[in-house]
């Protein structure tokens, strides 16, 4: 089996050389692990942090994109003459513009033009304008006359393979071959089972909608292009823009030191970068091009809808005998991993000898998907974890017990069954249940009135989360003992900068406020892959540690000469370098002559390889209590506990923030979020935050408890940390669904559990009030 391909990277990822020797793991820490407010919190709460959308350059224009209003259409005529004559308009580009005649690759092999006459989804780019003000740009967009041949469409993936369904691409609506996986013999497994349960599940498509809109500011200086870009990865954007415009990498600088959220939708370059660059080139002025909120619902990614038929067999003692999953999904109008990793939990989470999965990815006339916080996993957990609940009920076993009965020590879904470096699944389940008061809560009455209470559990793992090369980081120590940390990684709100500064502080004793950080700038910072896949901390923190240790080695050599003791005897105590044996042999770092003469010590760290033959995965178990109003079908999450094994806790405060954030997002999947297409026109009806409901402060329990299994993983890397951002949202929706079942005895197989849906199910069961 080929390893799952998580993220689209143009070309091969650059290699970094492995460090000569790996430092031993920390035995105890002074800074790492503490609850410390973010090092850039002041900038973020004072308004001094400059996000890409805040950038205002002298003489800057504003860009806007005309987008196809139809689900499927062909541009037959375009006239921008009137738009070009409007006040303030400085550039108009379309498919007729020579400078905009570039290929846009939607995948490695599938491409269209930047402005292609054939529009396969609502929101495809048709033309663009740069003008003195945003209002003038939109005036001009509206003044462009476009005639479309409106074509038949299909927007429901369940209808895409039906006979006579409109073809999104000429070759048909199948994205590729069926994706199949098999181990053991499921027929035999089902024959051996005492109970076999089969259920069809579905999760609706979700939209990322980070708070900062997608967009950039583009400026040319002669042949060089600078982009201020709201991105999770400056280097992937640089690579893609340079390749598309046929420019040298050194000609494209991407700066994204602050960014306002991405959740996977900002891992890659978009057409708007190229549009902004071309507009800026033609107008010979900088151009700011940020999408409108409505555009971000159409064309910058989504979590694909998943249709999952799951059949499972279990013995009376809780032994799983077989799992069979058939899955249908769609990544929209272009290849985008419409079923990517949906089957991974079925393959890997629980011990089961007989497993078969089959995934069908189809095209629809919808915006292309992008990775969305744990691609495939929350969908797979929605099916598998509700199934585990149903199996537990079928054999009369506690749902936690059933899961504990099937905890694997190695990865069954991978060839050769490699062991996990660490697995905290069992501890997450047992310690989480204990802290939640699971057994007492299960025994409590559901309530005699119309409002019923229930509790639910679900578990999960994340296929990645170990990070790995390449990454390079530079740490500099100034002669006064303050430091500079230079890394390419974006801090997407997860606290990356803070955690990395804490690693520097741990090794060099520099107080956090004396560490200056430069990050996410291809012009001035080191190479990093995009911040995604819950790999930033396990990738970057060992690299930062290596860089800090490289500085430390040089520092000790200097100090050893001045203190006349061997370097091996030295350590850092506070702001001093001190001998371990001679209490008098010590000197403040700021007073080291050698350091002053050198000016600055530079340490370069590179990320070493991961252990061979082992799998680094984070694990989670979550518990929640809900109230269901049987009169209205409303669900209220009353309390939530997330128990996570993500290796070492690097910062207890930002760790907790990640957990509550992931849980909150999962509650959205469970209860409110869904992309809705109009069946008659193929247009998205939920293209704003009024019609597409993300959780508000009213929708989340006031307290979400984070319970870490704080066990460093020394085999994983030199800081012992695993990823956290994605595992925290994987089991959440299923946890809520299971709690709803516990409360009212109705299994809601389709997300979201909206009042409309649940009220109808309750009415059908006759369990109202």
């Amino acid at each position: 089996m080929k390893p799952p391909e998580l993220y689209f990277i143009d070309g091969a990822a650059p290699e970094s050389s492995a460090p000569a020797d790996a430092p031993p793991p920390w035995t105890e820490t002074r800074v790492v692990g503490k609850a410390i407010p973010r090092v850039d919190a002041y900038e973020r709460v004072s308004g001094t942090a400059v996000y890409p959308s805040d950038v205002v350059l002298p003489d800057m224009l504003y860009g806007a994109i005309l987008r196809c209003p139809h689900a499927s259409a062909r541009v037959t005529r375009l006239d921008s003459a009137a738009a070009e004559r409007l006040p303030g308009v400085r550039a108009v580009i379309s498919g007729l513009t020579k400078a905009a005649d570039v290929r846009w690759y939607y995948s490695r092999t599938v491409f269209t033009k930047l402005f292609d006459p054939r529009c396969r989804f609502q929101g495809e780019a048709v033309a663009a304008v740069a003008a003195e003000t945003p209002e003038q740009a939109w005036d001009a967009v509206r003044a462009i006359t476009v005639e479309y041949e409106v074509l038949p469409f299909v927007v429901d993936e369940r209808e895409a393979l039906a006979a006579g369904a409109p073809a999104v691409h000429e070759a048909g609506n199948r994205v590729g071959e069926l994706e199949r996986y098999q181990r053991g013999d499921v027929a035999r497994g089902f024959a051996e089972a005492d109970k076999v349960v089969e259920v069809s599940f579905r999760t609706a498509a979700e939209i990322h909608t980070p708070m900062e809109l997608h967009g950039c500011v583009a400026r040319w200086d002669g042949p060089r292009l600078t982009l201020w870009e709201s991105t999770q990865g400056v280097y992937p954007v640089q690579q893609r823009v340079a390749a598309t415009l046929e420019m040298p990498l050194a000609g494209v600088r991407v700066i994204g030191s602050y960014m306002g959220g991405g959740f996977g939708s900002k891992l890659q370059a978009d057409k708007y970068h190229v549009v902004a660059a071309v507009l800026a080139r033609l107008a010979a002025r900088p151009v700011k091009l940020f999408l409108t909120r409505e555009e971000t619902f159409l064309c910058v990614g989504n979590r694909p809808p998943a249709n999952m038929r799951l059949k499972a067999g279990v013995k009376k003692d809780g032994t799983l005998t077989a799992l069979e999953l058939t899955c249908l999904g769609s990544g929209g109008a272009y290849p985008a991993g419409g079923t990517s990793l949906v089957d991974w939990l079925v393959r890997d989470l629980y011990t089961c000898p007989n497993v078969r999965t089959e995934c069908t990815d189809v095209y629809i006339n919808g915006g292309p998907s992008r990775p969305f916080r744990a691609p495939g996993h929350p969908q797979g957990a929605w099916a598998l974890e509700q199934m585990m609940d149903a199996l537990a009920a079928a054999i009369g076993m506690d749902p936690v017990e059933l899961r504990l009965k099937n905890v694997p020590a190695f990865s069954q879904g991978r060839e050769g069954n490699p062991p996990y470096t660490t697995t905290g699944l069992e501890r997450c389940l047992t310690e989480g249940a204990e802290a939640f008061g699971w057994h007492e809560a299960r025994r409590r009455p559901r309530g005699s009135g119309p409002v019923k209470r229930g509790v639910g559990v679900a578990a999960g793992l994340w296929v990645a989360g170990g990070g790995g090369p390449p990454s390079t980081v530079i740490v500099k120590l100034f002669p006064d003992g303050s430091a500079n940390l230079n890394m390419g990684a974006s801090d997407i709100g997860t606290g990356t900068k803070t955690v990395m500064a804490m690693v520097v502080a741990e090794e060099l004793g520099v107080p956090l406020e004396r560490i200056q950080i430069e990050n996410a700038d291809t012009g001035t910072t080191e190479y990093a892959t995009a911040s995604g896949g819950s790999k930033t901390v396990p990738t970057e923190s060992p690299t930062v540690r290596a860089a800090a240790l490289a500085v430390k080695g040089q520092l000790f050599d200097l100090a050893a000469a001045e203190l006349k003791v061997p370097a091996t005897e030295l350590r850092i105590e506070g702001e001093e370098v001190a001998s371990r044996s001679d209490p008098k042999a010590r000197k403040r770092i700021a007073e080291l002559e050698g350091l002053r003469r050198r000016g600055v010590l530079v340490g370069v760290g590179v990320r070493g390889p991961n252990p061979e033959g082992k799998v680094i995965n984070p694990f989670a178990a979550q518990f929640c209590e809900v109230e269901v109003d049987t009169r209205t079908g409303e669900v209220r999450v009353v309390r939530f506990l997330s128990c996570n094994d993500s290796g070492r806790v690097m910062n207890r405060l930002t760790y907790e923030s990640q957990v509550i954030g992931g849980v909150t997002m999962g509650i959205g999947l469970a209860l409110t979020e869904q992309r809705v297409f109009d069946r008659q026109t193929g247009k998205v009806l939920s293209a704003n935050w009024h019609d597409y409901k993300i959780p508000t402060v009213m929708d989340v329990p006031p307290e979400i408890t984070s319970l870490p299994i704080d066990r460093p993983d020394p085999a994983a890397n030199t800081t012992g940390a695993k990823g956290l951002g994605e595992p925290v949202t994987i089991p959440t929706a299923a946890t809520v669904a299971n709690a709803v079942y516990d409360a009212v005895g109705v299994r809601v197989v389709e997300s979201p559990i909206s009042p409309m849906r649940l009220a109808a199910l309750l009415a059908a069961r006759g369990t109202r009030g």
Partner: protein
Amino acid sequence: MGHDHDDGRDRCPHGVSRRGFFTAVGAGAIGAATLGRAQAPPGAPAVATGEQVTVKLRVNGRTHRLLVEPRWTLLFVLRERLGLTGTKVGCDRGECGACTVLIDGQPRYACMTLALEAEGHEITTLEGLMRGEELGPVQQAFLEEDAFQCGYCTPGQIMAAEGLLRRTPEPTPAQVREGMSGNLCRCGAYSHILKAVKKASEVRRGAGGEP
């Protein structure tokens, strides 16, 4: 574009068609359209596209006189003309609250307020909560409780909390939730935001109530 500072008051502008809707943030704000002192008469002629009029805006205690198109929002003018980028743009359609500012002490969506409508009123932005380089109590509480992740909705959250605490210095948990309900956070920092508002309330009262 003209731009200067003085402390004078200006007459209200006339003959301007406006969006005419003005969204209150959260349920605690008092009524809508409290700023409608310069209602255009029905059928009044619109200003031609591109034509600019003078407006005086009083922001964080300073008066700015500048030329604006009547259709420009307060949000656009604050960010792109006055350089006050602490106020963020999340949706530009009154859904998310990232652009929340205080107008005469009330939390308002700056994207739903035309710059002309804001004339004659006291506008406070995130920058206006600072005392020099020092954070205000709500900002400090958000910092300490880690009440944000990417930080992009945070200015609006802080302004909503500031407005809430100015009119309700000791809010109940239900009042806090209601007061913060007009502000979306996609990172999902709500639990910490609730803690921060509680802490800020305590700090403000300890300091004598006024910011």
